[in-house]
Structure formats: structure tokens, C-alpha cells
């Protein structure tokens, strides 16, 4: 498009884009490089190649315990938030809903309420009820902050569906539940997978709420990471694990995006 950019402009913009990509990836690449560094402190000059920090990390039961805890929490969160998200999205895209804009605003509100406020609010609620901080409370917090993302992924997909297919199912004798299970559900599977993945990631990475509500003896993985950065002996293990998570999540994001495009293209035909 020559009307927007000239030849020189293209070169300058391209160079700038390249520099920003470098800026965005340098810290992550450095993290991965120093995961293999044969020293306690990540500093130059490089002290030689080793994989011992990975072995150390995975034989550290505190660390693997935290990792497992977070994985379970994230799985439960992905399932629960997506389930609630589908329910909300179905109601919101339906033809009639009493006070629709009120519910929409309320359900999207967790996008803007600072997590620190949510966290301390939950601490107060738990105190008032006479309970102790628990992983259940962390899960509840994670479900609430994930819910808007689930809704925002599922609603657009529901909007693209041709409602006459669902009506055809009803004309052929299916009730609401069967029409949903046999017609709507299979068509929104790509969005559901995206939603579950996004909600999994939100919970797996979440620090603010977990740092206030996870019981001292059972930290989630981000809480453990944070405490690890304050303990020099643990730092290399934190870096090693961090490197794995960074690489894994980038692969997951790319794979998720590619598979969603492929699936939706296949469903569209």
C-alpha cells in the first residue's frame, strides 16, 4: 500500500519492528541461556554448560509439589471457568434476557478490578467467615478473574453460529438440552478449547491472589518462584524451571493459535 508508507518508511518501520522483537525476546532468551549456566549467579562471563539445575529443580520436592499443585488448580480452573463461561455466553447471546446489560457489566468487571484488591477483599471475607486461607479460596479467586476471558472467547463464536441450525434441531424434535449438546456444543468446541487453555494459563501464572490466599505450607508455583528469587541457593532452579515454562508456554500459544485456525476453517466448510 503505497498511500500509507513510502519505500524509506517501509525500511525504517521494518527495522523498528525487528528491534522491538529483539527487545521482547532478549530477556526470555537470556533466561533460557542462563538456565544452563554452571554457576549460582546468572552473570557474565558464562561459566560453562550444565544441565544440573534442571536435575536439581526436579528433585526438589518443594518445587515439584508446587508445580503439581498449580497444575491441578489450573486444570480445575480451566474446566470450571469455561463451564460458567459457556452458561453466561449462552444467556448473553440469547434473544431475551432480563437486565442483560447489568449482567454483562457485572461479569466483565473482574477485568478491571485490581487483583490486589480482590486478594485482600477475599482475605477479609475469609476472616469474617472464620475460615482459614486455602487453595479452594485461590481457586475461587482464579475462577472469577478467568470468567470474563472465557466469556469473551465464547460469545463471538456463538454469534457466528447460524441460529437456523439450532432451530432445525428443535423442529426435528430435539429439546433445548439435546439441541445444545448435539448441535451447538460441537460447533463451539474450538472456542471451548481456547477458553480452557486461556483460563489454565491465567491460573497457572497468577501470583497476587495466590500469594495472599495459598496456605504457607502449600505454595502455588508462582508463589514458590517468588520466594525462590529471594533465596540465592534456589535461584538457579527457579531460572531452570522458568526456562522450561517460558519455552513451553510459547509453544502452547503458537500451537493453540494454529490449531484454532485449522479447526475453525474445517468447521466453516
Amino acid at each position, binding site marked *: 500500500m503505497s498511500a500509507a508508507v513510502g519505500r524509506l518508511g517501509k525500511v525504517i518501520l521494518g527495522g523498528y*519492528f525487528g528491534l522491538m522483537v529483539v527487545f521482547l525476546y532478549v530477556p526470555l532468551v537470556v*533466561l533460557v541461556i542462563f538456565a544452563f549456566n554452571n554457576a549460582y549467579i*546468572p552473570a*557474565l562471563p558464562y561459566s560453562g554448560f550444565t544441565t544440573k539445575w534442571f536435575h536439581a529443580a526436579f528433585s526438589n520436592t518443594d518445587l515439584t509439589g508446587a508445580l503439581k499443585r498449580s497444575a491441578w488448580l489450573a486444570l480445575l480452573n480451566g474446566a470450571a471457568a469455561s463451564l*460458567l463461561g459457556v*452458561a453466561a455466553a449462552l444467556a448473553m447471546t440469547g434473544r431475551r434476557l432480563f437486565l442483560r446489560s447489568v449482567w454483562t457489566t457485572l461479569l466483565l468487571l473482574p477485568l478491571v478490578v485490581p487483583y490486589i484488591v480482590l486478594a485482600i477483599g477475599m482475605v477479609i471475607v475469609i476472616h469474617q467467615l472464620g475460615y482459614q486461607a486455602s487453595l479452594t479460596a485461590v481457586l475461587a479467586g482464579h475462577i472469577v478473574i478467568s470468567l470474563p476471558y472465557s466469556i469473551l472467547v465464547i460469545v463471538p463464536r456463538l454469534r457466528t453460529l447460524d441460529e437456523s441450525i439450532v432451530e432445525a434441531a428443535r423442529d426435528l424434535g430435539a429439546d433445548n438440552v439435546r439441541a445444545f449438546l448435539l448441535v451447538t456444543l460441537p460447533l463451539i468446541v474450538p472456542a471451548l478449547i481456547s477458553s480452557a487453555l486461556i483460563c489454565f494459563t491465567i491460573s497457572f501464572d497468577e501470583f497476587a491472589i495466590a500469594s495472599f490466599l495459598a496456605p504457607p505450607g502449600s505454595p502455588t508455583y508462582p508463589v514458590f518462584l517468588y520466594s525462590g528469587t529471594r533465596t540465592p541457593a534456589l535461584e538457579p532452579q527457579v531460572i531452570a524451571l522458568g526456562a522450561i515454562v517460558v519455552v513451553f508456554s510459547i509453544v502452547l500459544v503458537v500451537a493453540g493459535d494454529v490449531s484454532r485456525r485449522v479447526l475453525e476453517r474445517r468447521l466453516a466448510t
Partner: protein
Amino acid sequence: MTDRPIAEAPPRRLRLRPRGGRAFLIAPPVLVVLAVMVAPIVLIALYSVDVKTNLPFTPTKFTWSMWKDFLPPSGKFPNPFWHRFEISMVITVVVSLIAVAAAYPLAYFLAFVSRRSRYTLLLLILAPFFTSYLLRVIAWKIMLSNHGVINTALWDIHLRSHGDGLPWLIYSKFSVGLVLFYSWVPFVAVPIFVLLDRLDPNLLEAAQDLGAGRVTTFLRVTLPLSLPGVIAGFVFVLIPTTGEFITPLLVGGPGSQMFGNSIQSFFQDTPNWNYGAVLALWLVGVVFVMLLVFGRFLATDLREANS
């Protein structure tokens, strides 16, 4: 969705869903949000006026006194937490402005230069954004710390004498700002890109047919039309950064802690939940005002994304 032939009218009555159906679907998610998010905020409000307290054997009585203490016209001494709020807002606004300025050319490149590969390149800059937030901050700590990668690299190539780290590199407003900028800049590019990508190319050609140069076309056509995306991007950084506390915790020093850290300290280091509740509710209020001012730009963005 709504247009149906009149001939279909009689069976339509049969297809209507039972009235309870929608309520049955919307109730569970709404109840979860009410219980886990709205109820805590209500309790925070009660704590902030001393109607409730966590302190044992302390009488509770409604009072504005903590609010009066916190808010600016507080007499001779400026309240330290109000001061912290001001510093925090300056960091937030400066970071948001720089992020928008840096993201605009990224979006412009994606929309107008990289025609066919633009979604792939968008994913390339967004991928780091989807990795763990905490890990990205930790990665920067490794880069910036006193014996970290940047300082030791400078010593290695004898640009600075050994052991003499750059004083502003970490535990400063610079490090907090840099890491916040790093975290949000890819995300800011998205709403700007969406608007630029949808811009009608004929408008640009019309402007140039009428004698405008590229710069004039940009300033008088492209930029004004992409302004909603710019504002949406600005708010995308502004709102989450207003309540930020993780980045200052890891790479900030005593002078560069943010308002979120003050709230945190009242619940962890020096417990005073009631005063902490004042700060927390103030933060919620500030975010809601931002939402009232900028909300319509976000709303158009959401509506367009949905359609």
C-alpha cells in the same frame, strides 16, 4: 437472527424457550462473581469506615477519620500514602504514554507493510505477552541486577570498572518503568492494529489524489481514524498498571514502590486492615473513574470485536 418470514409465525410460539431457561444459565456465573468479587469489595468498604475490623476487643463505630487522614487536605503534613499514590500515578501515566507511542509504529508496520504475514507477525510479538508475567519480571531482574547480565557484560568489555554497577539500572523508577513497559507494549499494539487494518485504503488514496503528502495523509486521515484504538491501548496499560505491585516488589527500590505495594504492606508487613481498606477502596474508585472516562472507547472495541 431476528428476521423471519411471516409464514413461519404460527410454529414460532412453540419454539420459544421456557422463561426460566436464561435465568438458570446466567445465575451460576453471576452468583460466583457476587460472592467472590462484589462481597469482598463491600466488606472492604465497611472496613474503611471502621464498621468492621479484624482487631480483637476493638469497638467498631462508623467514622470517616481514616478517609480524612488519607485524602490530600490533611493539614500540615502530606500523608505519605497519598504521596505514594501520586508517584504511582506518574509512573503509570508515563509508562502508558510511552507504550502507546512505541506500539503505534508496530501496529502501523503490521497493518500497512507486512500484508500477508501480518497475523503471524502479530503472534510473534504477542507470544512473550502470554508467558508468565512473574517470569518475565524475574528474567528482567536477572538482566538488571547489580551483579546481573547487563552490569557484568559492561565490566567484561571494560566499559565500567569491575564491581561498579550502573546505579539506576535496578531498584529505581527506571527499572520499574522499563519492566512495566516491556510487559504491556505488545498488548497495546492490538487495538491500534485492529483499527488500522480495517481502514479503507480508498480514504488514503483520496487524500493523496487531493494533494496531501504522506505525512499530511497520516496526520489528518490515518491518525484521527485510529484514535479510538490508541485510547483503548492507553487504557489497556493504564488500568492494570494502576493496581500494580509485583514489578516494584521485584525490581523496585524504596523510592519506586507503587500504590499497590502500600495496600499490600497493610495486609502483610504492618497489619492494619482498616487503613489498608481505605487505600484499596480508593484504588477501586480510581479505576472506575478511569473506566467511566474511557469506557466508551473500550466498549466500541469490544462491540466491534464481537460483530
